[in-house]
């Protein structure tokens, strides 16, 4: 293969990234908002590594751990740690510190280190341990004793940190994955999508976030000379009834679920992005989501309310979500069709909430557990990967209509024309080589490195 001078990767330059979230600490546990999850996941994955990763099919891939094995009951796991990996402070990422970090993260685990491996034991079976270890919350970090900044093993190390505003990352020359092409990454936090788009148009940002976009083939208008990347649907937009909701009657909740016409919302407000959903897990993960009907059924909804006078409900939404208000208003409009008064409000006590839940894993069991946790549903029983069990568990969770799934949404980002070989993974991840089909952020290079603010 012959590459021209313009297309040959080369080192140098600073990649400028903008994000909506504005974290005060680089700690996922301190920032539990689902809306900020992907910003954290992407940022932290540049700094640290997990023991294993999952590909789009949910298959485990080696990362800090090269191999692993388990006993028959999935209570005892043994991971062989990659040799020669160092933390950004120069210390060895040997089994001992890794075991210490994991042990601190999971009190119910017994984590032991040997010379070249660690063992994880638990009283309960852990069939989904690999999926758990692949989650962002299990990235292996130490903390800088002075700045409390994370010190990981990833392709970039923390060079500067202004809480809530700016994170400067420098290329890790000794990354076990190899040195990234760019010299540095600057992530500006707290930028709205509008500000990000404006900065992008003015050439002040290389990678920005974007609202969910329609899959390939649907009409869309990405910025000129830019690369738009949408993930698989990895978020669930749903209506959630809190415990103190006035909608205590399941018939009212079911009527509301039956009143929502998801198709116009998906085609117009979501601009074709995402998938109408009545299940917690997306179809790409389970293949059975068609069993959960997304079609409205107004006669049935009216019949449910025939002998009842439903109370007026207040629907709240996340103001940081640019599409949430219109979607909420549309839901209120749909509800009015069947005689349910829904008032859209930003503040005050609410009866139903329009929320996003993150599906952080390609493993359906792990994703269902995480989604249930975020939506306030009970944790499903420990499952093997049987589709029947998964379907039954999901069906059980949705009985009573305490959660009404609406859409499965992708996450999207846009890279400028100077960003080369930009191809995030299908789950929207930026730095998990081997786990996804695309290249990680560490693999991209800048066509015009001198235009970067921090180019050497």
């Amino acid at each position, binding site marked *: 293969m012959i590459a021209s001078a313009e297309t040959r990767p080369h080192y140098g330059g600073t990649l400028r990234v903008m994000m909506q979230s504005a974290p005060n600490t680089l700690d996922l546990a301190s920032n539990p908002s689902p809306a900020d999850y992907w910003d954290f996941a992407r940022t932290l994955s540049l700094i640290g590594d997990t023991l294993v990763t999952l590909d789009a099919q949910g298959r485990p891939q080696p990362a800090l751990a090269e191999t692993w094995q388990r006993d028959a009951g999935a209570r005892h796991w043994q991971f062989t740690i990659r040799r020669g990996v160092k933390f950004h402070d120069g210390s060895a990422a040997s089994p001992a510190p890794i075991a210490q970090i994991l042990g601190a993260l999971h009190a119910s685990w017994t984590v032991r280190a040997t010379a070249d491996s660690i063992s994880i034991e638990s009283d309960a079976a852990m069939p989904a341990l690999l999926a758990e270890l692949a989650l962002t919350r299990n990235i292996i970090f130490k903390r800088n004793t002075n700045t409390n900044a994370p010190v990981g093993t990833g392709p970039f190390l923390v060079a500067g940190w202004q809480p809530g505003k700016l994170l400067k990352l420098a290329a890790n020359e000794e990354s076990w994955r190899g040195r990234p092409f760019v010299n540095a990454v600057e992530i500006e936090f707290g930028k709205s999508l509008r500000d990000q788009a404006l900065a992008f148009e003015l050439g002040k940002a290389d990678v920005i976030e974007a609202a969910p976009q329609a899959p390939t083939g649907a*009409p869309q208008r990405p910025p000129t000379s830019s690369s738009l990347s949408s993930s698989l649907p990895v978020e669930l937009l749903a209506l959630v009834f809190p415990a103190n909701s006035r909608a205590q009657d399941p018939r009212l909740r079911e009527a509301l679920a039956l009143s929502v016409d998801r198709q*116009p919302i998906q*085609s*117009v*407000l979501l*601009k*074709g992005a995402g998938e109408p959903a009545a299940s917690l897990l997306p179809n790409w993960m389970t293949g059975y989501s068609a069993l959960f009907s997304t079609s409205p059924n107004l006669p049935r909804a009216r019949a449910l309310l025939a002998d009842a006078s439903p109370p007026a409900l207040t629907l709240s939404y996340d103001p940081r979500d640019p599409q949430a208000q*219109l*979607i909420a*208003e*549309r839901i*209120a*409009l749909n509800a009015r069709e069947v005689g349910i008064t829904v*008032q*859209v409000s930003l503040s005050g006590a609410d009866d139903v909430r329009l929320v996003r839940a993150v599906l952080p894993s390609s493993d359906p069991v792990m994703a269902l557990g995480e989604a249930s946790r975020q939506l306030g549903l009970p944790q499903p029983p420990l499952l093997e990967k049987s589709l029947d069990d998964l379907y039954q568990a999901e069906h059980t969770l949705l009985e009573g209509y305490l959660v009404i799934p609406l859409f499965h949404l992708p996450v999207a980002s846009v890279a400028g024309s100077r960003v080369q070989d930009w191809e995030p993974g299908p789950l929207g991840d930026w730095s998990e080589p081997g786990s996804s089909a695309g290249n990680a952020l560490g693999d991209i290079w800048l066509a015009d490195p001198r235009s970067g603010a921090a180019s050497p």
Partner: protein
Amino acid sequence: MSFRKKLLLLFAATVLICVAVISASVYSTIRHSFEQADRERANAVAAQFRLEFQRRGSEVGRKVDAAAASEITQRIALDMNRGAASPSDSVGEARILAGQQQLDFLELVDSRGVILSSAQWQAKFGYSEAAIAEAAGVSSGGVTPPPAVQAGAFLKREELPNGATLGLFAVRAARVGDQPLYVIGGERLDQGFLSTLEIPAGTRVLLYQNLDTKWNPNLLLDLNGPAAGGDKIAPLIAKVRDTLQESQSVIHWTSDAADAEVFHAIPLSGPIFAAASEANSTNAKQQLLGVLLVGSSRRPLIELQRQIISTALLVGGLGVIVAVLASLWFAARVTRPVVSLAEAAHRVAAGDLSAHVEVESSDELGELAASFNRMTADLSQQKERTLQAERVAAWRELARRLAHELKNPLFPLQVTVENLVRARQKSPEIFDEVFQEGTATLLAEITNLKNIIGRFSEFSRMPQPQRRPTQVNDVAHSVLRIFSAQFREQNRIAVRTELADALPEIPADPDLLQRALQNLVLNAIDAMPQGGELTIRTRGLRDYVEILVSDTGSGLTEEECSRLFTPYYTTKQHGTGLGLAIAQSVVSDHGGKISVESTKEKGTTFRIELPCEPQA
């Protein structure tokens, strides 16, 4: 009430009634005129608002025209006719157009009546717009807007996420191809709309948005939002809702009539848009969507009325004063002879027969005065004659009594002197003895004569009473104590007392009162030579104290009773006739009365009435 006061009142009442009638008449006429003027002013203001309303409708129409001709609308219409319309691209365009044209409402609706984009409710895309959907149902081509919305602006109820509101709308079509794209734009009909209206001084405008099936005070708006005191306007609005006709009413906000307002209620109607499926069978009708209330303060009118009333009261008051003064003069002139006659009559009644009335006219009153003068002159002469006759009679009686009283001692004196002379002449040896006896008899009779003269002298020297608080019962007890020894010795007269308890003290001279009562008791004892019962009773009446002295003697004849208190009159052999006269004199000096009741052979009762308060 005196004749003069009656006349005065009659005159004053006549003047008052006249003034009141004239004032009421003037007030009624002026009030009617001003209310007429006020109604005409309210009508003029209402007419002005109708024009303003039409102007605002035209303005909305121009803005919607501009929106329909805009590049955005033309592009969407072109895409729609090409079949390349993307709802997701156009969903936000209506809001942009509305912002450009400063319209509160704007919707882009395709020829089937489906909303492509809504500025006021962005989530409403894909729903039907009744104003266009009706037309689409009527005309299969779907290119003719409904008649109700073709021309000018119209009122429409607009559903919004937070509830319904009222708007002034206009519809225009953007025709790029066969299928028109309708632009429905409008302005909110609320307090903001009211604030843009030019309001004449002294008037204000309220708007009732008839968006609820029942009266809802929150839908009554003024310039600042929901208007206060809506419940007082509710009947007027209910009337307009019932009749769909303009109406007018006076609203009293407080007890002060000047705070009242005249409200002219103008119904604001808009077309009823039937659903497309019903449009074939239903013609567009009008429905009441709002009521515009033009309020005009009644303060200027009321203050003018008050000024008129004040002036009328002032003039009327002055008129009444003048009338009263004139009445006083006139009544005085008319009643002066009558008053003189009345005063003269009072004097005559009081015993002054010298009263004389001036005869000032020759009319009936003058004749009456002359007759009165003649009558008093006659009475005076008759009284003088009576007095002279009584004086002569009294002197005769006195002379008779004196002769009688003096004759009795004089006869022993004469016999004694004759005995002394005869003894000196015939029996000088017993002269000394006779002389001793004779001088004793002479001295006794002379003493008797002196007593007679003393009693007459005492009667002529009756002292004036020295009043002090006196208990009549004590006086009665004193009198009985004086006679107690005599009663015990004679033992023929039983004494009985019935003295009232808690008798009030009266202002009296107890010594004089005791003397009067002694005379009555003595008189009773003399009336019962054969014995009997003497009763003394006292009792307190409302204004006086009564003393009754009764005996069970032989009684008196009527003629005796009538003369009983005449001085020197007595029915006794040895009485002076002064006892009862003294009693009457004492009682009279105390302002009281004494009377006698007697029944022959049963007894006599003397009644003394003494006032509790001193008499003038």
